[in-house]
């Protein structure tokens, strides 16, 4: 008798669980489909945006008094365990920032949407200036419409910036095909220079080439990417003619931070990382190409692996292709888009593609593991990673703590 009672209790619990699962499935489909890259956000995002706008207007008068400093915001979010990042090699700058303020380096894994930020599961969320930040602020298709109610903490200002999108190939490929590498770098950088001067046109070219995001977001992204390519970590402007140059100081800062925050369990890789110098990861020998003295490219058909989906983040390559810059130097280029868990370093290392775009930290990581990769151009001159927070949250926390 006792036994059956327990059984029927279990049965009831089972039914409840089953129902909960059913609702979870039906409720969850909307949120999982609203990815950063494409579709529209769930209906509830607009309502939360409305409420945030209302909060701002009501609290606007107390604007000067209640704002927290960046340090306080970071410490508060870390104490709540609400600092977010995607991981997978994108976390080093955030960990450096947390360490700077004497905090543990734990973070919440963000999926590739800003839903966790929207729902306050993450209050200090990682965002790229050219992608997620635009989606958070703007109200176009896929946006969360936060506008000026959000603010950012910039890695460049905090002194923990690491260089991101570069252009690399394997050392063996560069040695065997120096002219191909030179030709590809010069044509690509010509594309980048043009794209940065004409971001709107570049956005259209990328959109036509098969975009993963809306035309509006593509245009926003092109404008923001142009800023990263033509401004260095200290905020000084970089002339379009020197796009792709490697700033020694910024490269060294990236390597130093990488040595500090890349945690390796493989002892051989650990030793390789500790001993690594800039000469192990980059060469400036391929930045200029003169067909008359250098000669024709050894390999004329080449491919490049992007770090993510087709978008203006990589506009220089799409522009070089569309404007015929690759044809001019006698190259036939195949642009391979990435996304998700694609490992661009592995793709270049094992010869699937000839060139790749990755973050400098990821290249350092791969070379520590024994892949002989070589950066041949540095496209982004400053970090595009920021931490975004809602202003109303930073005020609320102040009120709570007093």
């Amino acid at each position, binding site marked *: 008798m006792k036994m059956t009672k327990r059984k029927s209790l279990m049965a009831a619990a089972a039914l409840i669980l089953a129902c909960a699962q059913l609702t979870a499935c039906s409720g969850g489909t909307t*949120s999982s489909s609203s990815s950063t890259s494409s579709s529209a956000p769930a209906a509830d995002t607009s309502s939360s945006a409305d409420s945030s706008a209302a909060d701002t207007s009501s609290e606007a008068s107390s604007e000067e008094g209640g704002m927290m400093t960046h340090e306080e915001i970071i410490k508060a979010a870390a104490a709540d365990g609400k600092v977010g990042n995607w991981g997978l090699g994108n976390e080093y700058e955030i960990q450096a920032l947390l360490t700077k303020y004497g905090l543990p380096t734990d973070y919440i894994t963000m999926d590739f949407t800003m839903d966790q930020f929207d729902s306050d599961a993450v209050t200090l969320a990682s965002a790229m200036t050219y992608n997620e930040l635009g989606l958070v602020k703007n109200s176009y298709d896929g946006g969360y419409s936060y506008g000026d109610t959000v603010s950012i903490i910039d890695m460049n200002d905090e002194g923990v910036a690491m260089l991101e999108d570069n252009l690399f190939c394997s050392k063996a490929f560069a040695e065997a095909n120096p002219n191909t590498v030179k030709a590809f770098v010069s044509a690509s950088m010509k594309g980048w220079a043009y794209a940065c001067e004409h971001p709107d046109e570049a956005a259209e070219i990328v959109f036509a080439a098969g975009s993963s995001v809306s035309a509006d977001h593509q245009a926003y992204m092109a404008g923001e990417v142009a800023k990263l390519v033509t401004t260095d970590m200290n905020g000084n402007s970089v002339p379009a003619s020197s796009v792709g140059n490697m700033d020694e100081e910024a490269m060294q800062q990236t390597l130093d931070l990488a040595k500090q925050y890349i945690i390796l*369990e493989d002892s051989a890789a650990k030793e390789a990382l500790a001993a690594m110098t800039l000469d192990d990861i980059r060469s400036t020998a391929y930045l200029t190409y003169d067909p008359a003295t250098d000669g024709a490219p050894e390999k004329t058909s080449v491919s490049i692996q992007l770090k993510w989906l087709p978008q203006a983040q990589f506009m220089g390559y799409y522009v070089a292709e569309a404007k015929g810059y690759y044809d001019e130097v006698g190259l036939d280029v195949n642009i391979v888009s990435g996304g998700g868990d694609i*490992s661009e370093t592995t793709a270049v290392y094992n010869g699937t593609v000839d060139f790749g775009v990755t973050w400098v930290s990821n290249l350092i990581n791969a070379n520590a593991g024994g892949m002989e990769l070589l950066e041949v151009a540095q496209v982004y001159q400053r970090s595009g990673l920021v931490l975004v927070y809602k202003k109303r949250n930073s005020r609320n926390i102040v009120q709570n703590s007093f």
Partner: protein
Amino acid sequence: MLWQTQVLHAWMGTDTITLPLPTRIGEIITQNSDTIMGHVKITIVVALGGLVMGSILGYAIAVIATVFSKWGAGGLTIVSAFNAIPLVALAPVINNWTRDLSSDVSVRSTVAKIIVVTISCTAAMSVNAFRGLTELKPFSEDLMKSYAAKKITVFMKLRLPNSIPYIFTALRVSVPASVIGALVTEYFAEETVGVGRQIRENIVKGQYPTAWAYIAVACAIGIILYAILMIAERLILKNRRAR
């Protein structure tokens, strides 16, 4: 042998970075045993938690299906349909759902992971247990009825013991499934912990020897849990026969 002497590498056209030598993998495991054990514990908690929950849930569903025999079999088909939802699709959905559950990320992340494993383990148990509860020896049910036994007595004395071997049949499916489920759901979890997550992180970061070390550990977890199950099955079923 083929692996260590790199014959395998030549056959597969790969190299010692993407497929490191077994000695190197062993080296990494022994050098980082503390870190790795930490991740193993997390994965095992999720796998076993989900396995226990899923099995209890599955058995309960089978009991309900037996009691309400008219629509029982049909209901089970629906439960089995849950099993067809790919873990990859389920994990992010459950993550969203458990987000408000706790302010502690490790609590809500663990709950989300256990729920996914639970779902992946439920169907095998409910289908098998239902067979165990209903496919009785010929005439045994009639015999019980001729004794004017109550339904509950039939259940306790006949159906329940009859279902025990079927429980083990179900566990043989769901033990490996729970380990795989735990590894996959860690990929999407909010917390960057567990053996599965370490495999993903290290592969994307190009740290193949370390990734292989975690793959080896993941295999070991599956094999050890299965071995424990086999031993338990032998002990328990042997006692039954002796009686």
